[in-house]
């Protein structure tokens, strides 16, 4: 059957059965709209978890020494230079970034101007040294390397720490909101080998140094400051503590698919994988995915009901139009022509319902985002948008509407095609 003829007949038929077509399309729009809305919500929240709360690179593996290891008694299981070289030479490793904690206590005492207000504060500080290559691209000022004795130590702060500061710490203390750009250049003193908590933990005389924030990084230590590895090694060496073994090594795999084999090889060396954050991300992601799936299932049920509704409506329509179908057959319609007409009518209803449902879901997401921005408290990691609508989801919504309608039309179209014109036109 010619497309222009099919289109004309479908248009005429839908114009006559506007009411039925409207309700059928409404059902499809409901199902598709809720599905697209919840999938968009699940993807959006998942994205926040992956990118903001627990940022993770699928190619990265954090290696730490085993907490308890027989190997360590025999000289294995520790992360010294030799172990790092062995890790670096494992198959599938693109790079190995060493990390070393400053192994003496440290405090900061700040009493001065703080972005337009006055701040007086003293607190314990944890410090971790990392190789500049690990945080390449996050440094916004100068170079991230050991500056040498007497010079300000470059410091990276965690973007997540900054988020927590802005959303919980600062509002309660009437401190200013800070962005990553604003804090670059900010300096504060740190006193190594000193503790407010336990005086016994110090191993010698304390040393006060100036630090300067050079940027914020997802890979920076969450509750502390991140300094160049060489600086951490120097401080440890000067304090007479272990400056040879590393706290951890971040391996970068050549490809995410290489990670499982890499993990096995690392464990075979008597070392452990620090996948706490990854697991938390996975668990939280799984919870979100589960909730989204349950809601999506509900939406799919609505789509199925919409398809059943279409099947009922079309069956009734086919029965009512039996004579009309018979006439079409008498003037030259084949069974496949009749089937095509019924399917095309339903396809138009499904496409319209799918497109309207998807459009309504997109509009509803804008409404929810506006509501959240205006009425929800400014909690940590609160995103600008709770939704993510990649194009396959948008297109999928429309296609789902089409498929639901075609599924609903399948049996009615067969029944229509099986119409016996001799019987319907008799009398």
């Amino acid at each position, binding site marked *: *059957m*010619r497309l*222009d*003829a*099919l289109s*004309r*007949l479908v248009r*005429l038929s839908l*114009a*006559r059965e506007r009411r039925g077509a409207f309700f059928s399309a409404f059902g499809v729009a409901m199902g598709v709209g809720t599905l697209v809305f919840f999938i968009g919500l699940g993807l959006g929240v998942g994205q926040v978890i992956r990118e903001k709360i627990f940022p993770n690179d699928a190619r990265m593996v954090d290696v730490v020494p085993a907490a308890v290891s027989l190997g360590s008694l025999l000289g294995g299981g520790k992360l010294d230079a030799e172990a790092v070289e062995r890790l670096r030479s494992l198959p599938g490793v693109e790079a190995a970034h060493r990390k070393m904690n400053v192994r003496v206590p440290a405090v900061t005492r700040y009493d001065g101007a703080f972005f337009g207000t006055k701040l007086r504060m003293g607190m314990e500080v944890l410090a971790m040294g990392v190789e500049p290559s690990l945080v390449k691209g996050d440094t916004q000022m100068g170079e991230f390397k050991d500056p040498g004795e007497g010079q300000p130590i470059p410091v990276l702060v965690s973007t997540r720490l900054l988020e927590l500061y802005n959303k919980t710490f600062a509002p309660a203390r009437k401190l200013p909101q800070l962005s990553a750009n604003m804090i670059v250049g900010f300096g504060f003193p740190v006193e190594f080998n000193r503790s407010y908590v336990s005086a016994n933990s110090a191993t010698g005389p304390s040393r006060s140094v100036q630090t300067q924030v050079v940027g914020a990084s997802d890979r920076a230590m969450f509750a502390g400051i991140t300094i160049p590895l060489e600086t951490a090694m120097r401080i440890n060496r000067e304090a007479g503590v272990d400056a040879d073994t590393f706290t951890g090594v971040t391996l970068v795999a050549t490809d995410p698919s290489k990670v499982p084999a890499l993990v096995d090889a690392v464990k075979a060396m008597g070392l452990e994988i620090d996948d706490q954050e990854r697991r938390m991300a996975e668990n939280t992601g799984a919870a979100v995915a589960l909730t989204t799936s349950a809601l999506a299932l509900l939406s799919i049920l609505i789509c199925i009901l919409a398809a059943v509704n279409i099947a009922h409506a079309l069956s009734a329509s086919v029965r009512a139009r039996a*004579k*009309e179908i*018979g*006439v*079409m*057959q*008498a*003037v*030259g*319609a*084949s*069974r*496949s*022509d009749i089937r095509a007409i019924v399917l095309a009518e339903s396809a138009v209803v499904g496409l319209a319902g799918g497109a309207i449902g998807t459009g309504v879901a997109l509009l509803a997401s804008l409404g929810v985002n506006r509501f959240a921005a205006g009425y929800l408290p400014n909690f940590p990691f609160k995103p600008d948008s709770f939704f993510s609508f990649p194009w396959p989801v948008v297109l999928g919504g429309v296609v789902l509407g089409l498929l639901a309608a075609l599924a609903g039309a399948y049996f009615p179209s067969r029944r229509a095609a099986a119409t*016996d*014109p*001799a019987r319907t*036109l*008799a*009398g």
Partner: protein
Amino acid sequence: MIHARDVTKEYLDGDGTRVRVLDSMSLDVEAGDFVAVVGPSGSGKSTLLHLLGGLDVDYRGEVKVGGVTLGGLKDKDLARFRNTHVGFVFQSFHLIPNLSALENVLLPSYFGPRTADAVKRAEALLERVGLGAKKDRAPVRLSGGERQRVAIARALYGGPRLLLCDEPTGNLDANTGDGVIQLFRELHREGLTVLAVTHEERMSVAARRVLRLKEGKLVEERATERSVLGGAP
């Protein structure tokens, strides 16, 4: 034009009894003839029409119309046959209510090959049946006779050589029916083969041949010389 041999048609009635409505029936109709088939209700007249028009192919025997053997044709080929070889006119007109008169006449064009002058052709046919001025009217705004004329125009759209009419004046009053019969006469004079099943005297009077369907078989009841009716040779 029509050649049917030993055609037998049976069906199951409501209580499951097998009813033989056509019993080894044979029929030959020449091109350009005007034939009326008469008989009581339920004698199988409409069934005969449906077999000849390719609407029903569930029978035994041979049916050949316009050189096309209908038995064994695939659905698509049967549809093409109905689109181009025959035109149907029904007692109840069977116009599609939400289409205008013109669109009803155009209906066969949707199932045939694309033609540039489809609308012109449909308009010309409506003119031919005297309804050129009412082409945009919906069937509900036409009288019974006018509806039947639209149905005739629709039947003629595909340029058929055979018109199959099922009680075409059955739902019309005497005057209107006479007008429709006159139209069939004119079409017959123009060379169209007309086969009408009817139980109306005036329709059978108009026909050149009258056949009676009796106990599943056709019996010649009357044949008039063509020159009397002025039909095509």
